[in-house]
C-alpha cells in the first residue's frame, strides 16, 4: 500500500524565502502526519518566489504586471533574470521540507534556465531531501510560449518504493503522447502538477483522468487554486473505484485550499491488468507505419 496526498493550494507571490517556507510547510507536514508517503503540489509553485526577486505590491501571479513593475521589457526577460534565484530557493526549501516531513515530495514546478533556455520543470525529492529527478514540461500553452519557455525533450520515470512515477507537467496533459510514453516505460503512477484557468463538471475529460483510464495506471493531480481553478484528485482505472468513476479522492471545491489523500494498492492494479490490459490490443504495425509520416507531414 502506498499513501499519497495532493495539496490544492492558492498561488500568490511571496515577499521572502521565509514566507514561502512558512506557506508551504504546514500543509506538507499535515499531509505527512496523516501518513502520506508522497506529497504532490501544483504547477507553478516556484513562480511564487518571483515576489522575492521583484519587490512588488501585488500578490497575484499576473506576470505581465509584475514585469512592468520590475521594469522588465518582457515577461521572458523577467523570468530569465529571476530563474536562477527562484530555482535555488525552490530546491533548498523543498529539500528541507521533504527531509523534515520524511516524505517523497513532488513540489510542483519551477522556472529554470538550462543551456540558455527557459523551462518549466517539476522536481521530485526523497525523504532524505535529495533530488530523485526532474522533468521538464514538454508542451506549452500559448501563454507559456510567449513567456519564452522551451520544450523538454525527454520523459523519465523513477522508482520510489512501490510506485514507479512519471510527470505529466501542466499542459502536457492535453497531449496524450506524454502519458502513453511514460506508461510504456512502465510508470504506474502519473503525477500531474496543474494550474487550470477554469473548471466545470466535465473537466475530467480534459485532465489526468483521461490519461489514467487510457493507460490503466494511478494518477495524482494537484491543482492550483486562487486565481486558478480545478479540483485536485487521485485517479484510478474506473474498474478499481467503488463508485466506478475512476476517482479515488477529489477536492470538494474548485478554488479552495485542501489536502486530498488516498491509498494506492499496486497489487490490485496488477490484478486489474491481469484481468484486462488494454495494451494487449495495441496495433503495433499501424502505429509504426502511421506515426512517423503523420507527425512529419502534419504537425
Amino acid at each position: 500500500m502506498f499513501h499519497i496526498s495532493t495539496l490544492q493550494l492558492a498561488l500568490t507571490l511571496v515577499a521572502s524565502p521565509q514566507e514561502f517556507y512558512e506557506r508551504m510547510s504546514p500543509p506538507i507536514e499535515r499531509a505527512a502526519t496523516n501518513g502520506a508517503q508522497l506529497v504532490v503540489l501544483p504547477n507553478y509553485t516556484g513562480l511564487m518566489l518571483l515576489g522575492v526577486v521583484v519587490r512588488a505590491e501585488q500578490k497575484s501571479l499576473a506576470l505581465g504586471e509584475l514585469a512592468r513593475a520590475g521594469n522588465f521589457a518582457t515577461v521572458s526577460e523577467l523570468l530569465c533574470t529571476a530563474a536562477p534565484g527562484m530555482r535555488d530557493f525552490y530546491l533548498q526549501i523543498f529539500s528541507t521540507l521533504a527531509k523534515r516531513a520524511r516524505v517523497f515530495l513532488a513540489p510542483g514546478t519551477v522556472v529554470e534556465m538550462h543551456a540558455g533556455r527557459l523551462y518549466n520543470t517539476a522536481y521530485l525529492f526523497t525523504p532524505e531531501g535529495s533530488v530523485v529527478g526532474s522533468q521538464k514540461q514538454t508542451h506549452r500553452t500559448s501563454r507559456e510560449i510567449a513567456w519564452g519557455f522551451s520544450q523538454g525533450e525527454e520523459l523519465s520515470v523513477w522508482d520510489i518504493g512501490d510506485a514507479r512515477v512519471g510527470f505529466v507537467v501542466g499542459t502536457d496533459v492535453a497531449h496524450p503522447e506524454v502519458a502513453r510514453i511514460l506508461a510504456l516505460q512502465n510508470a504506474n503512477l502519473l503525477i500531474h502538477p496543474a494550474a487550470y484557468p477554469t473548471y466545470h463538471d466535465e473537466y475530467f475529460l480534459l485532465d489526468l483522468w483521461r490519461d489514467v483510464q487510457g493507460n490503466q495506471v494511478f494518477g495524482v493531480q494537484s491543482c492550483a487554486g486562487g486565481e486558478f481553478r480545478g479540483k485536485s484528485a487521485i485517479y484510478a482505472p474506473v474498474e478499481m473505484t467503488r463508485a466506478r468513476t475512476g476517482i479515488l479522492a477529489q477536492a470538494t471545491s474548485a478554488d479552495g485550499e485542501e489536502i486530498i489523500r488516498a491509498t494506492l494498492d499496486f497489487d490490485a492494479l496488477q490484478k486489474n491488468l491481469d484481468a484486462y490490459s488494454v495494451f494487449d490490443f495495441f496495433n503495433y504495425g499501424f502505429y509504426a507505419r502511421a506515426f512517423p509520416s503523420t507527425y512529419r507531414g502534419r504537425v
Partner: protein
Amino acid sequence: MSLKEFVLTTTVQASLAYKARGSAIRGALAQRAYPRASQPTRDRVGAAAVQMQSELVDDGAQFALKCYALARQAVEGGAALIVFPEYAWLPLLGLLPSARALIEEGFTLERALQEPATSESSAPRILQTLAPAIKSILETTGRELASRFGAYIMIGTGIALNSAGQMFNTAYLFGADGALIGTQPKLHPTAREISWMTPGEDLNIFTLPFAKLAMPVCMDYSFWETTRIAALRGVDILLGFSAEENANEFHLAMRGIASRVQESYAYGIQACGIANFAGLNFCGPSYIVASIGMRRDTTTFLARTRTHNVEEVITAELDLARLRDFRASQARDANLELYRKYLPQAYESYRARVTQDGKRRVV
C-alpha cells in the same frame, strides 16, 4: 470438407444469396417516400446517431426497411450525415437456417465464436459463409438510402472477407449520390473479437465537400493513437459506433469518443447498437459531442439519447465554421523531437518487455 458439409454449405450459400438479393431490397425501398436531406455546407451539417435495436430479420428487404425508417427519422430531424451502429449486421443472423430456434435454445454468439474453426458448422466458418450476404445487404441498403434521401450514410459495420478468408469488422460510408465513399476496418479488436477478427492496417480519411471524416470503430476510440492520427490528417468529424455491454456506465463510456474529441478538436458522433439475444446485451446511450470550450456552454454533449436500451434517433447541427475558429484559437504545441525519440520505438521496447515477461507488469 466432407460431401455432407459441401452439400450443406452450398445449400446455405444459395439460400443466403436469395435472401440478400439486391432486387428485393431495391423493390421494397422503392415503395417508400423520401424527404430530401438538407444539404450540408462548409459551415454546417446536420448529423444523426441511430441507436438501433437489433432484432432478427428474415431477409435483406426487411433489414433495409428497418434502416429506412430510422434514416427517415434522422432526415426529418435535419440530418444529412447519418451514423448507424457497429454490428448493424446482427439482425441478419436471422437469415441463417434455424437461427431463431438455436437462439431460443440458448445459443450464445460469444461462446460460439471462441470455438476453433475446424468444421463447416463452427461459428467462425458460419460467419465466413454469412459475410457475402451481409456485405451485399449493407451495400445495397446504404447505397439506396443515401441516394434516395440525398444523405451521407454510414450504414454500420459488417463482416468483410479478404481473399485469404480473413474477416474484418468493417464500416461502410455512402455519399449523398449513393456511391460507396469508402470503408474502414476496425483497427483494434476487442477480447471477444480477437480470435476471429483481423485488425485493419490504416486509418482512412474521407474528404467530403463539407468536411473531412474518419470512422474508427468502437474499441479504436480506446486508443488516442487512432484519433491523434485522424486529427493530424485533418479530420473534422469522427464517426463513432459501438456495440458494447457497458455503454450505459457513464465513466466507462467516457473513456471512448468523448475523451478523444477533447484531444482532437473535432466533433464526434457515437451510435450504439442495442441487442438482447444470443447472449448479447449491447446498449447505449448514443450521443453527439464537441470539444469542451468550442461552445459557450461547458458541456461536451450536443445531443444524447434519453434512454440506453430503446431504439432512438438523435440529431444535432455541427457548426463547422465554429470548429475552424476554435482550432485557430487553440494553437497546438507539438514536440516533434519528443515524438521522434519515442514513437513508435517505445511501443517496440514495451512489446519486447511483455514478450519476455509474458504480460504487462506494473509491480
